[in-house]
């Protein structure tokens, strides 16, 4: 529901992550990890990202989203499993004392920048 705000943050962080000496290189991709328990809809986020990034330092970049499954660890029996439905107790022993290991991510993992050599070639050709 707040994908536009999220997209703005993503663009801001990605633009700020471009190293100084590569400021003139094109950012080709932004890699995100989104947990399935987070309330972000990937398609909406891509849509907003395209709008927000258009007039930014990362114009033309593609957003790559890796969806992270919800996994949990049982504190009672050490069982480790992937939660696929809305049930948060251990399928092994039935305990509700569980720790969520993954599934709530909303992280930028990396950005892909056009290679230096290409950048120089391109500007030489231009």
């Amino acid at each position: 529901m707040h994908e536009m705000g999220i997209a703005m943050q993503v663009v801001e962080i990605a633009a700020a992550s471009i190293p100084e000496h590569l400021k003139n290189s094109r950012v080709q991709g932004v890699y995100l990890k989104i947990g399935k328990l987070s309330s972000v809809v990937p398609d909406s986020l891509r849509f907003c990202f395209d709008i927000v990034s258009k007039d930014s330092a990362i114009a033309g970049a593609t957003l790559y989203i890796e969806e992270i499954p919800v996994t949990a660890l049982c504190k009672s029996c050490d069982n480790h499993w992937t939660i696929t439905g809305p049930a948060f107790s251990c399928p092994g022993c039935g305990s509700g004392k569980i720790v969520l290991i993954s599934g709530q991510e909303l992280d930028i993992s990396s950005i892909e920048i056009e290679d230096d050599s290409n950048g120089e070639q391109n500007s030489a050709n231009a």
Partner: protein
Amino acid sequence: MEIKVVRKVLDVNNTMAALNRKLFTDEKVFVLNVMSSPGSGKTTMLGKTISRLMPDVRTAVIVGDVSTTNDADRLAKTGAPVVQVNTDAFGGDCHLAAHVIAKAAENFTLADVDLLIVENVGNLVCPAEFDIGEDAKVVVLSVTEGEDKPLKYPLMFRVCDAAVLNKIDLLPYLEYDKDEAVRNIVQIHPGIPVFEISARTEDGMESWVIWLKEKVKEKLKP
């Protein structure tokens, strides 16, 4: 070439929330983030709660709504200081972010406040995602909503420390399976306390207020 970034998208909010948490801890203020869908009776429930807390627990309220000051006007009648935040000034946001709370809290003399209640924007999706620097999160739902709400909004019920099931006075008129609703809440969050109340008749209010008072006392004890 790949440049590692590894940053949380909500870093800015999380940093602000951490600052809020430090401020509220230094000032000895317990912060309660109250969330719900629209129309769950959250404002009535909070009004009745505050009346039972004051003057023992000095309470202040931040009310978030996309627009209007109706909720703030209703809560001001309890005598508690109230600040209304209309999120349309921030782009019609669907939740209160940490920086909004920091700004709104400037309106209170925190030394005179034991409990700061934040009535979040009515929405079961986004507020669950945004840390505001609170000590506890509570979700309010009512028996006029579906029994399966917890299953539809698992993150909300997962992150909350307590759930309030409101409007139980209407149960005789509804085909609502209250036990199933409670089962669904506990399925998402085993062990979560669930308070069945009617804010209108004040049925069940006592145990909810005791729970809240205990929480506040725990934080404020020297």
